[in-house]
């Protein structure tokens, strides 16, 4: 049974002078444990698709099942809980909170779960160690390099042990060495069973995915599985 099932998703941004159709009929199933890379030209709708999968954006039309639940109809409160417990985000521009330390930023990933997790501190430490940031717990984001910031963001995404991690151009702002290291961490995560979807422009990264989806003009142009 697929973890994510999208059928005939359309999305149009209103709120601008001209309505922009960003997605025009996307259907896709993603199984647990898959590593999907989304590629395509700028403006083709990659980020939009990822945001819809992450429930940050509600599709204008179409059906979206997450773990067999129709997320287009459930209330906002439950969506928030879904994000808090099942989904992790990594952004191109890191999106850390400036006035919180590395430790506090990572802990935010547990804050909204509402289940009284024991060993909160251990979980945060573990996530920090996993991305190699254990020694920087008390630093502020601006005291870190880009690569370190992104590792911190990944730790925040995975600290709650989500079923799926969504990463929108996670290496877009990093040099090649840091990019490779970041992808390595994500890949390691996927090896341990976490579903991973990344948007990327680097074909070298797409090659490592189990499946590559190419977007074009709001539609899926090509979907290819790597034979392993």
């Amino acid at each position, binding site marked *: 049974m697929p973890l994510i099932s999208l059928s005939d998703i359309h999305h149009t941004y209103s709120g601008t*002078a001209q309505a922009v159709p960003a997605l025009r009929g996307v259907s896709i199933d993603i199984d647990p444990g898959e590593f999907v890379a989304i590629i395509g030209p700028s403006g083709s709708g990659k980020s939009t698709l990822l945001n819809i999968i*992450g429930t940050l954006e509600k599709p204008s039309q179409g059906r979206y099942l997450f773990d067999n639940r129709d997320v287009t109809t459930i209330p906002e*409160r439950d969506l*928030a809980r879904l994000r808090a417990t099942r*989904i992790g985000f990594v952004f191109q521009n890191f999106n850390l909170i400036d006035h919180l330390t590395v430790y506090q930023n990572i802990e935010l990933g547990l804050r909204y779960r509402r289940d009284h997790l024991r060993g909160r501190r251990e979980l945060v430490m573990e996530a920090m160690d996993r991305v190699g940031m254990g020694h920087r717990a008390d630093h502020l984001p601006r005291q870190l390099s880009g690569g370190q910031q992104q590792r911190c963001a990944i730790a925040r995404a995975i600290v709650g042990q989500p079923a799926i991690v969504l990463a929108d151009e996670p290496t877009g702002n990093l040099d090649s060495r840091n990019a490779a290291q970041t992808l390595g961490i994500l890949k390691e995560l996927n090896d341990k069973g976490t579903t991973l979807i990344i948007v990327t422009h680097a074909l070298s990264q797409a090659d490592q995915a189990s499946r590559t989806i190419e977007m074009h003009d709001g539609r899926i142009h090509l979907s290819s599985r790597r034979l392993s």
Partner: protein
Amino acid sequence: MTPLLSLLLYIFRTVVARWGVYLLMVAGLTLSYAAAIVVTLYVHDELTHDRFMAQADRVYMLTARYGPPDRGLVASDRTPAGMAKWMASDVAEIDQVARIVAIEWPMRSARRQVRERFYWADPNIFKILQLPAVEGDLATALKAPGSVVMTQRMARAYFGRPDAVGLTLTTKDNQPLTVTAILKDLPANTHLDREIFVSGRGSYSMLAVFDLNPDYQWNSAYIYATFKPGADVAAVEGRLQAISRSHWRGPNNLPEGYELIRLTDLHFHPHGDGEQRPRGHVGSILALVVVTAAILALAGINFSGLVLAETQERGDEMAIRKALGARRIDLIWQILREALWVNLVSVVLALAVVERLLPALNGGLDLDLHLWRHPAVFLGVLGATVVLVTVLSGLYPAFAVSRPAANTGTGRLSALRWRGWVVAQIALVVVLLIGSHTMNRQWQYATDDALNFNGDHVVMIRFSDFPNDDADFVAHLRDLKGVESVAESFGSPTMDNVRPAWIRRPGLPLISLTRNSAHPDFFKVFQVPLVAGRHLSGTFSVPEVPPEILINLSAVKALGFATPEAALGQEIVYETDRTTMRSRIVGVLPDLRFATVYEPKGPMIFDNFSKYLTVVNVRISPTDTAGTLARIDALWSRDNGGSMPMQRWFYRDYLLDQYHDLHQQMRVFNLVAGVAIILSTLGLTGLCIFLTRRQARDLAILRALGATFGDIFVQRLTPFFVPLLIANAIAWPAAWLVLRSWLGSFAEHIPLSAVSFLGAAVTSVVFALLTVAAHSALTAGKVSVSASLRHE
């Protein structure tokens, strides 16, 4: 949605987003300018008392002090009528001196017939009180006996027309009076409370009577004087006591001293017995000015913050302009120019608002404020204020934003600064709330709890001057349906013309007390229980020895009795009164409040001389008061043959009139407090808009991490808690200090209450959080998380 509709929606949203801030700016400034204009008019009105008279600053009013030589216990605006003549003959520096004596006598024309309040006046009075005339010659108007000068308003009342020179009316015993001049209507801010001046030359006038009887020396006349240029008024003042002693005849007390008060200072001079209108209080005026300045400052700070937030939003625009070659001064000019426009629009709106509100305000506060009385000065002051506010509030954002570093994104309003902003707002609101509550409590105390008697449902009726009619009337009143109890008295509680007296018990110091005469049922009418002894046994007209008196608890203490019971049966001698009357204490009363709370409650005596009874007090049943009043009116007409209109009033109305100034202060203050609260709401809303913009990304991150709207809500409220605490920590001691000194201006006052402080704290916190919460709730759904996360 059709493309056109979505286009329109888009335009609407941008306009609101963009203009919402401008709307807040204009609303806040308009409100505070309007408040500042009203307060300025009010303060100006208070400070220009009597200045409508030409050369008012050259005029002095004579006042007298009574009491033991070392202590002026009672100050009186009225002085012995003889003083005017003695000053004229003995003081070389005098230019003019003249008297007026206030009286109520019947006055009658074809249109109007009342017991009129007017002045007997010396003919030269208008040489001193230079009232503007519209008809006739004031220099000669009162020379002939039987001449009268009145305002246009009075002329209309008596004759139906303002130009009444030559027309006649009659007074007591059908004495004819001829109008010789018409005055312009008096403004509300004068110490004069009557609008008719009758020549004191007539043989029936009180002034003539005083002049014929050199021993009629008591506090009867208001005496005004002007001095020759270069005269040393203080030196004259020092000689007056000796002059009055050298001429004094008759049995009454000689004043212990005299004071000459400049007419323009009179309104803020401490209370004087027999003052024609309640005095003002400089402290309250000062507080009002300070609070208004604070409100303007607050509006300026709000405006400053909004301008800063708004221009930072346009940081790119500034950078581009710079790239195009704009100098820093150009950018500063641009921001200042925009600030000036916003201020100008606001002040014009404020003028329109005030223009519309003034009639209601004047009616509600019994004022006579006018926007355009001195247009040039007014516009000048207003213009200067606008420029000042613009420059002070525009300069900071102008410099901050045009700073060379601004385009690198470091020009943010720091967290410290916006917290300071919240603290200032809330602290002021808390001080005003505490102040408002305390003022209202003091008002409540003054007009109710402090009285120690129950004046509700008491009607007071002034006697006609026909003793037989009055006796009939009172007798019939007692049997009237709806009348619960009836008692005659000399004055009434809080009436200012109680008679001062000085007494002593052997071996003890002289004490001053007020003396009143009443029917025994007086205490039933005002529901005053006896503390000890018995009531008066009746009234009597011939002074037998010794008459009965009741004294109050203060008198028990001042006279040195250990207990109220110890005073019973004791005799008292009015030592300084040359009549050397003796009285026996038969009962003790609680401390009734006869004077306002501006004066301490003091020792008091009630005797039962019927000779002094001038008023009948009637307690009527609370049900069907209108019916009872109608029956009383009908009874009056019957017993007085319809010739004399009745003068009656509720005690409550009389009391409220005594506290007219306090009431005015309280209303103006409440108004200003309300404005401050609205202003803070606007300021906080502006701050919320600003913070929401700034925190959009952070909040979006939290949303992506699974925070619910509820979580976000809490997240946005928490930063306000510490500033709210600090604001209260600052406001409490400030309010405590200011209010303690305000309450200190009353001889008797309530203690400051913890309820005011806690209430203000709770109100301010709830109010601030509600404002923030309302803004959060209104905007929460509109923010697109994914859009906020896209860029930095």
